[in-house]
């Protein structure tokens, strides 16, 4: 919300939904940290963040909607990966592994679809474009080999956990923080499980959990996007996420 341009039309835009008479039912939406407060916050964060900037880079945006778009981008990546795994399962998967990927594919598709619905509802016009098959780059993954697929799943899940852990502090809306918390623990469950599939007992080993503090990793949005960028052809800009 740093470079708000103040002009009459934007001011009118801010106030528009609030000028309509408040009926008793909708009035309660304005009380407390509920959807009402969310709408107020988002209408306040009306930064100049048209998603696609001239050089083809996609800006994830700023403020809370930036964090939501950031999560949406990562969930799209995960969902597309698992959809591919489910469509072309490696021949050397065990039955347990095939089942794991089928279930996790549904979880990640739900996260993706949920963020899409939530952003379109709470911040109309602010959502980043869909990352379709043509926008992703999975050439480094050998989907025919169990080891390659499991290693990629581990990378994505651990990265997802670190991403949510590092992004929570950028959310201003309590309801969104709770949602992020509800999702990150599921990502952590996935991460633990896929790690155990690779090597039983590595669910929370010293390579991922600091043995001195017992803390999982937390990463800043720009670092997470840098790590994910090799799998995404379109360039993502996370530099304003949460700001």
């Amino acid at each position, binding site marked *: 919300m740093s470079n708000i341009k103040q002009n009459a039309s934007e001011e009118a835009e801010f106030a528009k939904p609030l000028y309509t008479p408040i009926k008793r039912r909708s009035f309660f939406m*304005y009380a407390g940290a509920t959807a009402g407060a969310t709408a107020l916050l988002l209408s*306040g964060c009306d930064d100049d963040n048209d998603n696609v900037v001239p050089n083809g880079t996609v800006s994830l945006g700023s403020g809370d909607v930036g964090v939501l778009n950031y999560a949406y981008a990562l969930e799209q990546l995960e969902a597309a990966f698992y959809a591919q795994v489910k469509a072309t399962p490696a021949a050397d998967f065990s039955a347990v592994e095939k089942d794991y990927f089928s279930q996790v594919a549904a979880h990640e598709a739900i996260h993706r679809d*949920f963020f899409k619905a939530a952003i379109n509802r709470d911040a109309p016009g602010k959502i980043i474009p869909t990352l379709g098959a043509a926008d992703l780059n999975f050439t480094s993954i050998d989907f025919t080999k169990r080891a390659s697929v499991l290693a990629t799943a581990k990378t994505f899940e651990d990265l997802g956990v670190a991403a949510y852990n590092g992004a929570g502090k950028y959310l201003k809306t309590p309801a969104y923080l709770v*949602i992020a918390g509800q999702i990150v623990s599921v990502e952590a*469950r996935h991460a633990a499980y896929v790690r155990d599939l690779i090597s039983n*007992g590595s669910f929370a080993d010293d390579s991922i959990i600091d043995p001195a503090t017992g803390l999982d990793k937390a990463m800043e949005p720009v670092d997470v996007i840098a790590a994910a960028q090799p799998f995404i052809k379109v360039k993502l800009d996370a530099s304003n996420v949460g700001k």
Partner: protein
Amino acid sequence: MNILRIIEQLSEVDADVLGRFDSRRAVFKGLGSTAKKGALAAAPVFVASLFSKAYGQAAGPSIIEVLNYALTLELLEEDFYKKMTAAGKVPAGAPAGAIALILKHETAHVALLTKTISDLKGTPVKDVKFKQSAFPADYETQLVVAQALEDTGVRAYKGQAGNLMSNSALLQVALQIHSVEARHAAHIRTMRGQTAWIPASASSLPAPLGPVYTGNIREDNVVQSKVNITTDLGTPYTANEAAASFDEILTMAEVLDASRAGGLVA
């Protein structure tokens, strides 16, 4: 933004609207200084917080109270795993390795939270013990209790995130512990032949597991932020998929209730 008009409209449905704010004078004083800075954009945030204060719940617990609550749960877990290790029923190899790793993390969490509370000039709780009479003799039931403690821990940390929003560093640390508890929960669950995540079908179980998954928001909940995950997303998803995709919170009161972790403290 015309705050006067909003308040006027609120007064039509709620005659006490002005009485709900700190005081009539404070409302306009706060707005005045905000407006003077020309920070129009801050007004919605200001109004949202004003309404939260006026209509929201009573003030939440302090940061020290939240940290001591977390420390209480970590001490309970640490003592449980110490008792489990001492009881000698955990099979050598992978099971013993997993329990040792989890105990190591709980001990680290206890140290970290204790130091943090002391650094903040608070008084860290100590000597929280797992109730001996509730400690199971057999390994299988010990794992059941471990699952209850870990899945409770996940729900408990999640439930306090909102109370740490005023301190970014502490919020992040809490999240970094939270995901470790989720990793523990996932592993313990798979040691018991359960899925690593919590499907809707696992939300009505006998004690001590049953109450872990119930509460004001149950683990089989499929509606998130007013979106019904099974029906509202264009693609239909099953209740098990919807419930497993989102873990749910427990409040402090729910966790400390005698039917849950509160009943396991000596």
